[in-house]
């Protein structure tokens, strides 16, 4: 394991609010594209491969493999095909309510992300480039200003356009995002992946904004530099959204492989006895406290410890918070976030929501708990996207991580007297959606 040094851990400039001038003074221009189109481009994909960069949006998929898949899908089309040239979409939707890293990055270092979009577009020969943040995001004015600065200074080969899909959980899923850019529909697409046929039928690269920021640094400093810190199987630094029972909740950037305990320390340390952790977010997994603090924060180690790194959310549950109540609140919200296209999601999620609610309010019997477990098995692997699977994992791991609390609730007791109102370790659940807005963000007339 590489040992973190403080300066190596701070690459993304999170304490800044960079104008283009500040950004260029700090990082310099992206290396100029030389020679015929494709020569330098190819070398960036190779450099990304050497870096070992994996996607920071939740899947931790190797970025070089994704870049190559888009290039190959484009090359497989005839020269005359009108849908041959790829599209790049920077994903800053951050649908995960417990995550704050993408917003922080876009506020602090917008030009690093935009450089990443530009570099990726060049590398795969894209002719259209977008940055997506959710509708109504407070980031919009700053990003429009950043794009205007870039247009003025002509730093991008192709213009980057800002798009604002509806602020729905599944709208940030990559096929939904490509669907939105191509057709103005924010629903996931089941039968083709974006790299094959995405926005407007073109091969489409959808990358999380943090991934793109790392890519912009790899374009400047090279793959080996990037891989110089962090866990060998998923190197580099990563942003972590830390919340719950810690003194200073917020976003920190650490080398991958940093222990959970050091991450909590970076956030002022736990404020109380932590009873468990939620990892990865609302499609992630709960883990009991025992032993977890020593876990290195990287995809494989977190998985081996029973968690999911996902979008790099780490939430500490304190003793004033009933985990079953939290599960019920989140399940209610996740059920409302179904895109309503698939039966096991549209009907299954409300059913498990009701089951876990009964459990939280101590009205469930053993049979209800068994039915909940059976239903959680039934809704996985059967939707057009992973939304029901994530919700099922969130609930199943929660039941497994807090067996004493489940038993207490079935016996009519709650060790916490339910969650104390205003508890700092209560999970954030966005306001209920306006009933008059559909999943595509359209108003019903």
């Amino acid at each position, binding site marked *: 394991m590489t040992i973190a040094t403080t300066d190596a851990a701070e690459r993304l400039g999170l304490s800044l609010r960079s104008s283009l001038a500040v950004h260029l003074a700090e990082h310099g221009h992206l290396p100029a594209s030389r020679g015929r189109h494709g020569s330098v481009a190819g070398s960036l994909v190779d450099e990304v491969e050497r870096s070992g960069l994996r996607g920071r949006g939740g899947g931790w998929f190797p970025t070089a493999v994704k870049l190559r898949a888009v290039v190959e899908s484009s090359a497989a089309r005839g020269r005359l095909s009108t849908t041959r040239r790829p599209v790049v979409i920077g994903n800053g939707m951050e649908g995960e309510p417990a995550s704050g890293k993408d917003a922080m990055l876009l506020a602090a270092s917008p030009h690093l992300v935009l450089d990443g979009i530009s570099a990726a577009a060049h590398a795969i020969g894209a002719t259209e480039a977008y940055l997506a943040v959710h509708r109504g995001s407070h980031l919009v004015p700053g990003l429009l200003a950043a794009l205007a600065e870039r247009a003025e200074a002509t730093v991008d080969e192709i213009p980057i356009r800002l798009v604002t899909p509806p602020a729905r959980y599944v709208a940030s899923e990559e096929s939904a995002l490509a669907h939105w850019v191509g057709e103005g529909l924010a*629903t*996931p*697409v*089941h*039968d083709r992946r974006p790299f094959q046929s995405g926005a407007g039928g073109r091969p489409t690269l959808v990358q999380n904004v943090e991934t793109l920021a790392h890519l912009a640094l790899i374009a400047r400093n090279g793959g080996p530099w990037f891989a110089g810190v962090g866990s060998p199987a998923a190197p580099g630094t990563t942003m972590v959204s830390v919340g719950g029972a810690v003194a200073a909740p917020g976003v920190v950037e650490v080398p991958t492989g940093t222990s959970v305990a050091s991450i909590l320390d970076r956030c002022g340390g736990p404020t109380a006895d932590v009873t468990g952790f939620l990892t990865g977010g609302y499609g992630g997994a709960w883990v009991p406290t025992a032993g977890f603090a020593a876990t290195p924060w990287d995809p494989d180690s977190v998985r081996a410890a029973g968690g999911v790194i996902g979008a790099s959310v780490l939430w500490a549950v304190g003793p004033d918070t009933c985990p079953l109540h939290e599960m019920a609140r989140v399940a209610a919200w996740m059920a409302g976030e179904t895109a309503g*296209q*698939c*039966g*096991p*999601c549209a*009907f*299954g999620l409300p*059913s498990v929501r009701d089951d876990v609610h009964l459990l939280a309010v101590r009205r469930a019997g053993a049979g209800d708990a068994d039915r909940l477990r059976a239903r959680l*098995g*039934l809704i*996985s*692997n*059967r*939707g*057009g996207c992973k939304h029901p699977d994530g919700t099922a994992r969130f609930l199943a791991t929660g039941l497994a991580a807090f067996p004493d609390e489940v038993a207490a609730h079935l016996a009519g007791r709650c060790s916490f007297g339910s969650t104390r109102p205003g508890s700092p370790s209560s999970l954030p659940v966005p306001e209920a959606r306006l009933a008059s807005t559909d999943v595509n963000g359209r108003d019903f007339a």
Partner: protein
Amino acid sequence: MTARPATQILVLNPTTCDGRGLCAEAAPGLVDLDEWGFPLLTGGGLRADIPGERLAEARDAVHACPALALHLESAARHRR
């Protein structure tokens, strides 16, 4: 009778399926329905291996579906 290796895969598109269950009526041995009336394929996912001797039933399910949510594809196509 020993099952021959699967040559075809029954594939369900969950976003087009509207859950009226005609597939389960046409091929009760291959497709079950869950408590909400949506099809459950063998193995629980969206793709089910179909042994050669059950291919006719799988075709019945495909043809029964008014939403065109089911199709058969050859197993070879999806080998990676």
